[in-house]
């Protein structure tokens, strides 16, 4: 009986777009406790960053963004993750974000393209 096989619990979306002439595949997944975003132009996941909101004593939340795999200290990638976790927080979710960026260049224009594509297709 079909009812015995559980429904797949993760919502996800996959799309492809062009950013500065580079074909970019974007995948978004919504897990119970995390959002996963993958944006790749190089056929691999690239650098993986983890961004989370920290509820502190003050009214304003603080965010912790770090690269956990791949290129550390790439400011544009950290900025991209920071923008997205902030957007998630403003939308009312306190889930963390795991974002992997495999991009051919780390220019502001490329990162902006990624951020807007993700926000346009967001799962939060």
């Amino acid at each position: 009986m079909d009812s015995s096989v559980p429904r797949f619990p993760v919502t996800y979306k996959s799309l492809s777009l062009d950013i500065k002439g580079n074909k970019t595949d974007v995948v978004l997944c919504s897990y119970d406790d995390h959002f996963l975003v993958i944006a790749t132009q190089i056929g691999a996941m690239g650098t993986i960053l983890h961004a989370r909101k920290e509820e502190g004593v003050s009214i304003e939340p603080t965010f912790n963004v770090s690269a956990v795999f791949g290129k550390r200290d790439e400011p544009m990638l950290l900025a991209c993750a920071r923008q997205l976790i902030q957007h998630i927080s403003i939308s009312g979710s306190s889930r963390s974000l795991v974002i992997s960026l495999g991009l051919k260049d780390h220019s502001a224009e490329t990162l902006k393209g990624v951020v807007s594509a993700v926000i346009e297709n967001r799962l939060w």
Partner: protein
Amino acid sequence: MAREEPDVEALNEAISSALVSNDEVKEGGGVQITCFSEVVNDVALHFQILRLPKQIYVWIGCDSAKLGRIYAAAPTRPKDMISVTSILGGASDNTGAGIARRLVLKTGLNIILACNIPKNSPMLEAEAEKMLVQKLIQLGYTRAKAEGSSS
């Protein structure tokens, strides 16, 4: 001339018939996503396989849809040894690290594995790995074994 059209139609038919299965397979550009769920001893196991040209991302969910611990595994030169590292979720238990390692062996690709199978469930881990590998073989993501080799 409409000469090109029949070829495109035939190709479309071939592709759509190949994709017809009980599981959901989505293709968005260069990414293939395969999702399926199974029940093992009253426990629901969920699998999500994301195939990128040079890498495979896999999520294994055990009852819940939490992301779990993330491991990265890759073949490292010069001797084709496999390296595994924990990226997220701590490494106090290695549920999933072994699976990641063996996936690299079977596929020859870099693997990112997210797994929320609880600690101390070796049977569940083994079942999950078995189902996952079966699916990978079915999808054609594994590389052909050299004849006469033992795994």
